[in-house]
């Protein structure tokens, strides 16, 4: 079942002619001519679609919070600042099929009553920005953007805004600050963007993948979307698969397949690279807790783990993780967990905006302490120190970057403490090129 990527490999799908030939822009026709904005919102609510950027908040509900005071413009801003390590699905979708996003933007803007919308794309993806701008121009030329779209009386202008290289701008209030031409410092909430967003006007910020899914929902109905998936995990999800698998790439899966099937089936990742064994997975982008092989494949109670919001978080942080953005990073037995955790800690240290002391200072501490463990200079008390610092960041910052920095470190120690201890106790072994600790009796031990 493909919703977003059904035609993604059709040659020249990036052009409006080919996109239309494959059923494109029917949702705009249907929504603007046959439905009211509230009816579109109702279908999105029925679909159960949850925010695909990582938070998983129900999209229809987010839309319903949008304030609609008379005479005040409202805005839809697409969050295309994809920067969560392990995640590259939005990049893929916009690069291959820009009109899929643009069509979703038109339908969603109509539902929200926005007459100007923005797609905020991370600045590094300048080539994707050029692809989007070309596609937007095509849509204007065909009367799908601009004044009186398809004679419906609805006006929409759509612009692309480049970022400047800052992970924090994926946080919605930081993104809005950045769109206003400022440093990307997250705002305190409330007020929420739905009430006071960009330029203090009511604003909805949604992820690329979420917005792109709305066209299919308009065409086929919210119930049809909700029929895919399991429980509250409805529809399909783009998973960015990377690491030690045979076939890295972006896969659109129906939510609810087993993790085992996703990793080992030829339809998806194709299994672990030849001659190697699964050691660990970070299932939802670098922020979510890493899990060792046994816990990613089955829950602590022995059930097969599914690719759903609920199943991946089964067991809480003690034995579970999160679906997050769907950045699925697979590691085999050659992976040094301490080194991998160091790259994540360094990432959050680099990306902290510096506004809140626990995050600004704490991410620096974690980076420094893991760095010295990795380089054979670790001290016995360092592991508990890391746990303590992570705990002091978590929940004590304006935005979720603090949590995102704390969780991977805490989880790496929770599940691979012996590996950190080995680095500290045997620095001469641990600092050798390519040295990796093998847990005796582990399923991945050689």
């Amino acid at each position, binding site marked *: 079942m493909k919703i977003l990527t059904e035609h993604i490999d059709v040659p020249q799908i990036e052009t409006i002619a080919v996109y239309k030939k494959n059923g494109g822009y029917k949702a705009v026709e249907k929504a603007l001519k046959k439905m009211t904005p509230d009816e579109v919102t109702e279908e999105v609510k029925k679909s159960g679609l949850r925010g695909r950027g990582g938070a998983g908040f129900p999209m229809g509900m987010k839309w319903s919070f949008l304030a609609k005071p008379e005479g005040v*413009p409202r805005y839809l801003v697409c969050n295309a600042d*994809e*920067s*969560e*390590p*392990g*995640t*590259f699905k*939005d*990049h893929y979708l916009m690069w291959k099929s820009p009109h899929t996003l643009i069509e979703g933007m038109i339908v969603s803007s109509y539902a929200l009553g926005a007459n*100007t919308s*923005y797609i905020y794309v*991370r*600045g*590094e*993806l*300048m*080539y994707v920005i*050029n692809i989007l701008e070309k596609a937007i121009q095509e849509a204007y030329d065909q009367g799908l953007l601009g004044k009186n779209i398809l004679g419906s009386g609805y006006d929409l*202008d759509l*612009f692309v*805004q*480049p*970022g*400047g*290289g*800052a*992970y924090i701008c994926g946080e919605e209030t930081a993104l809005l600050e*950045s*769109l*206003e*031409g*400022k*440093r*990307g410092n997250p705002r305190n909430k409330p007020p929420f963007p739905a009430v006071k967003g960009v*330029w203090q006007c009511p604003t909805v910020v949604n992820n690329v993948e979420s917005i792109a899914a709305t066209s299919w929902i308009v065409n086929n109905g919210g119930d049809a979307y909700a029929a895919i998936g399991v429980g509250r995990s409805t529809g399909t999800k783009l998973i*960015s*698969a*990377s*690491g*030690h698998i045979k076939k*890295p*790439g*972006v896969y659109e899966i129906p939510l609810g397949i087993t993790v085992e099937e996703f990793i080992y089936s030829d339809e998806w990742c194709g299994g672990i690279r030849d001659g190697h064994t699964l050691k660990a997975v*970070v299932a939802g982008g*670098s922020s979510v807790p890493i899990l060792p092989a046994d816990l990613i494949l089955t829950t602590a109670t022995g059930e097969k783990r599914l690719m759903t919001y609920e199943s991946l978080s089964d067991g809480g942080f003690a034995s579970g993780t999160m679906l997050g953005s769907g*950045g699925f*990073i697979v*590691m085999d037995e050659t*992976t040094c967990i301490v*080194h*991998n955790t160091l*790259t*994540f800690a*360094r*990432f959050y240290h*680099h*990306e902290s*905006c510096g506004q809140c002391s626990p995050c600004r200072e704490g991410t620096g501490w974690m980076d420094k302490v893991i760095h010295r463990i990795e380089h054979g200079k670790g001290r016995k008390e360092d592991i508990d120190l890391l746990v303590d610092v992570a705990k002091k960041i978590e929940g004590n910052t304006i935005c979720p970057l603090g949590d995102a920095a704390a969780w991977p470190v805490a989880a790496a120690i929770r599940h691979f403490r012996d590996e950190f201890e080995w680095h500290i106790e045997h620095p001469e072994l641990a600092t050798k090129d390519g040295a990796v600790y093998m847990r005796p009796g582990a399923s991945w031990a050689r």
Partner: protein
Amino acid sequence: MEGKNQIVFPAETLELVAKIIKRYPEGKHKSALLPILHLAQAQWSWCSPEVMDYVASLLSLSPVEVYEVASFYTMFHLEPVGEHVIEYCRTGPCCLMGGVEVYDHLKKRLGIQTGETTADGKFTIKEVECLAACGWGPVFQIREKYHMHLTTEKVDQIIDELSK
């Protein structure tokens, strides 16, 4: 030779600047700052104080409003760079795919460390965080172009090509 090195966008870029400012509501032209900083960097290769002052004048901002923004975002070079800036991803997934070895090779080949520029002014190497191309790693970016699935051989090819 007054005027020769004066920092002014060419006429067509100025037209583009005017168009960009119109993307935002009246009075919200500060929003054009990031797009215009990108144009300025493309024009002058780095954001010198003079370039930033010029951008400030275009948007009627005080210079400090531009400095504080340019210094927040990692894409803007606040010091001179070489002709080709190679920005390699150092984050986890690219490292899993052998990034460390590939980047070490790159540094050895050019004889410089991260943050440095070759003596002939041809290449600068910078370390960056995740470029959202994890499944195609290791990755580096040179201007707008992503170079993916890097190997030491591929790095040599790219450097050879750019050295011509």
